[in-house]
């Protein structure tokens, strides 16, 4: 009984232990000694990933608040992949930027643990705590470059607004508790199932407040304002990590809460999410057009992608849920790849994140330029990359549910988004290098990670069947 009862915790434990191990390693590290601390993280995440695989189809449940169902495991796996990719790019970057490596890895792993908890939690309080774990870790990661005013500013903005929004979220939890007397999603679902036909204002307000909390974390409009600033100010890899991992975790919880506990109120939240999805897609892409800083541009792009993911949630059918999972995976790989390249090209004294910095990259670094182009085209949703299949999947959910308007707006905005992705491609391929700037060399490990990511994008773009089936299986049995 006991082992089955703790089985669901395995991925979380692996990551947490790795984090603690990292802290210990850092503590015993002599000044100036190089230590492969990142390796600990890789081991932890690798075991967590393996745990996800082992737990597959077991529906393990621990301590009444952790449900390692396939849905949660899929998202956990996505988060682990995001973490692994981040760590793969990190070694070189943190050495170069002089970031405190022990804290960096520890916090990354703490955040990962929080994300995984969030993905598998079946209790609102646990979700809130997980949210805080990952948020606080990420706030700190954002401000890790203490010497940089903009990093501190970004971290503080992110922190302040995050705290602000989690207060709303918590208030939503409280009101839910007031109504139902429980924070367990199953209990809430049961209560809502009984009272669902008789909607009271309190239910709506609780719903609205929870929605705001989630919308903030996935950076949906109009709760998105922190995103560009935080993304721009944070160390590039952290940006990549939080744009993918946080989003995945938040979406997992979002889906879980809204499609289980608050499922009976679907008629009430669908219009709001519809509007938010519309706004998010439009604002994200339109403002993205005007950006000259690549990180900022990708921030708006990430807002837009949140909109596309919301489309899947609004559709709320089998396809919608599965498509979100697929999308999250693809987005994680793609976006981390793009941010990884930006990070790898930057040096501490010479950031490589403005559009013009990319001028003529093709001439000096053809391979990196090609990889970057693939990532950007995948973000833009062009076949044969995985980004296309992901978008197709999400929009087919919308069409299936009859939301043609969302599908059409989504499609059109993704065309607009192609415009700004292509601006980078234009710079890399069609502009001459402005000044012969020295771009740092890229190590073997990050390069391998990039190549693997690209291969994965093509694999998922050309032969997505297995992953689609997997995603469908993840959601098929749960809600």
């Amino acid at each position, binding site marked *: 009984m006991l082992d089955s009862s703790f089985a669901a915790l395995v991925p979380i434990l692996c990551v947490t232990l790795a984090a603690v191990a990292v802290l210990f390693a850092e503590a015993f590290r002599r000044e100036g000694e190089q230590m492969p601390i990142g390796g600990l993280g890789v081991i932890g995440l690798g075991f967590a990933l393996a745990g996800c695989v082992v737990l597959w189809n077991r529906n393990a449940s621990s301590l009444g608040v952790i449900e390692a169902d396939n849905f949660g495991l899929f998202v956990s796996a996505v988060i682990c992949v995001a973490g692994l990719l981040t760590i793969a790019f990190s070694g070189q970057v943190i050495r170069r930027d002089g970031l405190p490596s022990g804290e960096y890895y520890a916090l990354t792993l703490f955040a990962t643990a929080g994300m995984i908890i969030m993905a598998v939690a079946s209790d609102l309080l646990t979700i809130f705590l997980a949210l805080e774990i990952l948020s606080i870790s990420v706030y700190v990661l954002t401000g890790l470059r203490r010497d940089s005013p903009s990093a501190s500013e*970004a971290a503080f903005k992110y*922190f302040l607004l995050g705290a*602000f929004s989690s*207060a709303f979220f918590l208030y939503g939890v409280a009101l839910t*508790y007031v109504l139902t007397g429980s924070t367990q999603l199953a209990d809430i679902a049961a209560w809502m199932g009984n009272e669902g036909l008789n909607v009271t204002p309190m239910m709506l307000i609780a719903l609205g407040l929870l929605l705001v909390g989630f919308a903030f974390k996935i950076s949906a409009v109009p709760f998105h304002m922190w995103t560009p600033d935080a993304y721009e100010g944070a160390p590039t890899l952290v940006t990549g990590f939080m744009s993918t991992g946080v989003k995945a975790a938040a979406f997992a919880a979002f889906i879980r809460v809204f499609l289980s506990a608050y499922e009976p109120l679907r008629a009430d939240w669908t219009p709001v999410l519809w509007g938010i999805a519309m706004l998010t897609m439009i604002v994200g892409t339109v403002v993205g057009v005007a950006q000259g800083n690549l990180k900022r541009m990708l921030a708006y792009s990430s807002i837009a992608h949140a909109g596309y993911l919301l489309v899947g949630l609004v559709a709320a059918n089998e396809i919608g849920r599965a498509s979100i999972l697929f999308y999250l995976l693809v987005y994680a790989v793609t976006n981390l790849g793009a941010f990884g390249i930006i990070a790898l090209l930057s040096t501490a004294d010479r950031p490589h994140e403005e559009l013009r910095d990319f001028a003529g990259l093709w001439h000096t670094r053809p391979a990196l330029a090609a990889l970057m182009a693939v990532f950007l085209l995948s973000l833009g949703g062009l076949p044969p990359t995985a980004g296309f299949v992901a978008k197709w999947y999400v929009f087919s959910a919308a069409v299936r549910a009859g939301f043609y308007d969302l599908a059409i707006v989504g499609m059109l905005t993704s065309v607009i988004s192609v415009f700004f992705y292509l601006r980078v491609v234009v710079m890399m391929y069609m502009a001459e290098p402005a000044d012969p700037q020295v771009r740092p060399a890229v190590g073997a490990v990050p390069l391998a990670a990039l190549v693997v990511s690209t291969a994965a994008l093509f694999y998922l773009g050309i032969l997505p069947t297995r992953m689609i089936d997997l995603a469908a299986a993840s959601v098929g049995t749960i809600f």
Partner: protein
Amino acid sequence: MGDITLNHYLVLSAILFSIGTAGVFLRRNLITILLSIEIMLNAVNLTFVAAGRFFAAVDGQVIVFFVMTVAAAEAAVGLALVIALFRHRESLNPEAFTSLKW
């Protein structure tokens, strides 16, 4: 008036919560803004405790315990950030930190 019901507490907490939110974007001092968030969390705590009382369960207080932990963690990180910010700009005015925009 009359008897104090759950609703009294809920309304009170709503008022406190709103005061907190107002503080967040009305004040021009980072510390006060953090305090405002504390007010919001406390308002929520009141709701939990009142509801726990209403349901005659300890859950409310337990949750408050966790929320306080969270508040402590947030305060620690938040204040650390404030210190970091102050080191850069010698100011606690949020309007001094607008280098990231557009």
